[in-house]
């Protein structure tokens, strides 16, 4: 069993480090700071922390005012609320108005598993990906958070950062050097490419191990940035492996899978299967059991790989 890292704690620690290096960073919360661990920033920088209460629309608009005044606001609440309740604020001021606000989407995907379908954030990627100027990032582990968060602060324009609530397997060490907008190749292979982000990167590595036992060499890409998508990495994978599987902790509609399908369909039609939540709502349960139940099991990735390899070999 791989070592685990708690993503909330990793985020809180990274946020405190950001406070040291970036004096213009301010942090806002809609009263869930002990859930998302932004309270760790508040403890060190109380004058740069603002709890606006359980008011997500105000959370985003207050952040907009701070951004237009030269601050770099990191707004924190549950992921599903940014993409639904506060969406008009995000569209009008962050995307059209180019307010330099960073949306920290806590408890993304199914990671708030026991709180049930009202709290699962699985349509957020599709909704926010439709907005011009938006950048969407899903880090895979604690090192990814730590390395990407300063880039998020330095990035000009709005960013939606999807954060898991839970313990996830450690993938990367301190040498990890991700770059916003660039895929990171975790494993090379020539037969099929598994394009994933978040917790699904590790599950795709498990799937790659299983495929290897059958003599299939799977490339695994960590596509932490869904938008802007690393189109070159997708097209290289299509050209070099001829079969693609996407895997994400989100709906199969409109997310990473949708983005990859758009690129391939218009540029280089390639056998493709999307692993994700199959256009449906979810339920309460233990996190890993929920992932398995809703189509995100390692076996689902393996099965999808088998399907695209079949399509590749039969030419359909």
């Amino acid at each position, binding site marked *: 069993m791989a070592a685990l890292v708690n993503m909330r704690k990793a985020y809180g620690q990274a946020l405190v480090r950001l406070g040291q290096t970036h004096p213009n960073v301010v942090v806002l919360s809609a009263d869930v700071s002990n859930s998302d661990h932004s309270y760790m920033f508040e403890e060190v920088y109380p004058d740069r922390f603002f709890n*606006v209460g359980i*008011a997500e*629309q*105000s959370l985003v608009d*207050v952040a907009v*005012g701070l951004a237009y*005044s030269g601050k770099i606001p990191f707004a924190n609440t549950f992921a599903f609320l940014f993409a639904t309740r506060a969406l008009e*604020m995000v569209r009008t001021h962050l995307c059209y108005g180019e307010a330099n606000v960073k949306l920290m989407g806590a408890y993304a995907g199914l990671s708030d598993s026991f709180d049930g379908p009202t709290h699962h954030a699985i349509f957020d990627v599709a909704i926010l990906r439709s907005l011009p100027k938006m950048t969407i990032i899903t880090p895979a582990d604690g090192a990814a958070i730590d390395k990407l968060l300063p880039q998020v602060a330095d990035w000009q324009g709005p960013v939606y950062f999807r954060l898991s609530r839970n313990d996830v397997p450690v993938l990367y060490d301190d040498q990890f050097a991700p770059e916003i907008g660039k895929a990171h190749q975790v494993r090379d292979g020539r037969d099929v490419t598994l394009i994933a982000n978040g917790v699904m990167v590790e599950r795709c590595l498990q799937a790659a191990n299983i495929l290897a036992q059958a003599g299939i060499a799977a490339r695994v890409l960590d596509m932490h940035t869904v938008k802007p998508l690393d189109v070159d990495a997708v097209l290289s994978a299509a050209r070099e492996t001829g079969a693609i599987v996407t895997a994400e902790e989100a709906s199969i509609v409109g997310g990473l899978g949708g983005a990859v399908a758009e690129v391939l369909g218009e540029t280089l039609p390639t056998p493709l299967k999307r692993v994700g939540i199959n256009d449906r709502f979810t339920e309460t349960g233990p996190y890993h059991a929920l992932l398995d139940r809703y189509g995100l099991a390692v076996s689902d990735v393996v099965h999808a790989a088998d399907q695209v390899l079949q399509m590749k070999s039969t030419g359909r």
Partner: protein
Amino acid sequence: MHYHSEALITDLTAKAQSYRIQVLKMVYQAQTGHIGGAFSIAEVLTALYFHHLRLDPANPDWEDRDRLLFSKGHACAMLYTCMAHRGFFPVEELATFRQLDSRLQGHPDKMKLPGIEACAGPLGHGVAIGVGMALAQKLRMQGVKPSALSAPSGRASAGRTYVVLGDGEINAGVVWEGAMAAAKFKLGNLTAILDYNGIQQTGASADVMPTEPIADKWEAFGWHVQEIDGHNMQEVLAALDRADEVHARPSIIIARTTKGKGVSFMEYDNRWHGAPPNQQQYETALAELEEGLRAWLH
């Protein structure tokens, strides 16, 4: 309380009335736009742009300026008129209102027109965005020596934030989210002006969504409240001064106004919320407004 001379009052009032004429011409020429709520806010916007706000049209991004969020964005014909005459852009450009390639978009557009602090039109954003701006101004006051702040008018400060709201607009819940936050953060550097003209798109606000007793509501939310006649320039100027002197809590001026003010057949009539006049209506309205202007120019 500052003294405002009779000459100043007369000058600003005449300006406001002449800007109504400008707005009428813009909306008539474009055959699109919102007259009623532009006419009701004429005196308040004129007072802000030509007397009260600390700003520099040649340097709209000056860090220590006062910031005005025109949250009732649909009434922007009056905003553009005031900005043009204040020197933000050529007055002739007003003729491009709502046309292709114009910087004078259908609603105030930060991306196109320097001097617009935030996009507006979707209603309700101003107070909460204003909270963010006022917080930033407070942080700036804490972070630098007063001597480092620009003070061309003798007031060394990081600037204040002003929000102009419509009375229909305050149906939106986010207004009250922002109102709570402003009181929590003790934003004495934030002033809202509520254009309470009593009419919204489909009828009287009292029928569409009653908001009275409006002063009590804002008081209950922790704001300093003044109620004035929003067409009386003396009262407008005095209330703006008074609001600046309130410490440790946000301030709101409830400006009792008349929608469509100055044109008999437009006043109190929701049909003039967002409709342009035809030629005959235009000529009648113009004659009435010019007569009103003469009363201040005699």
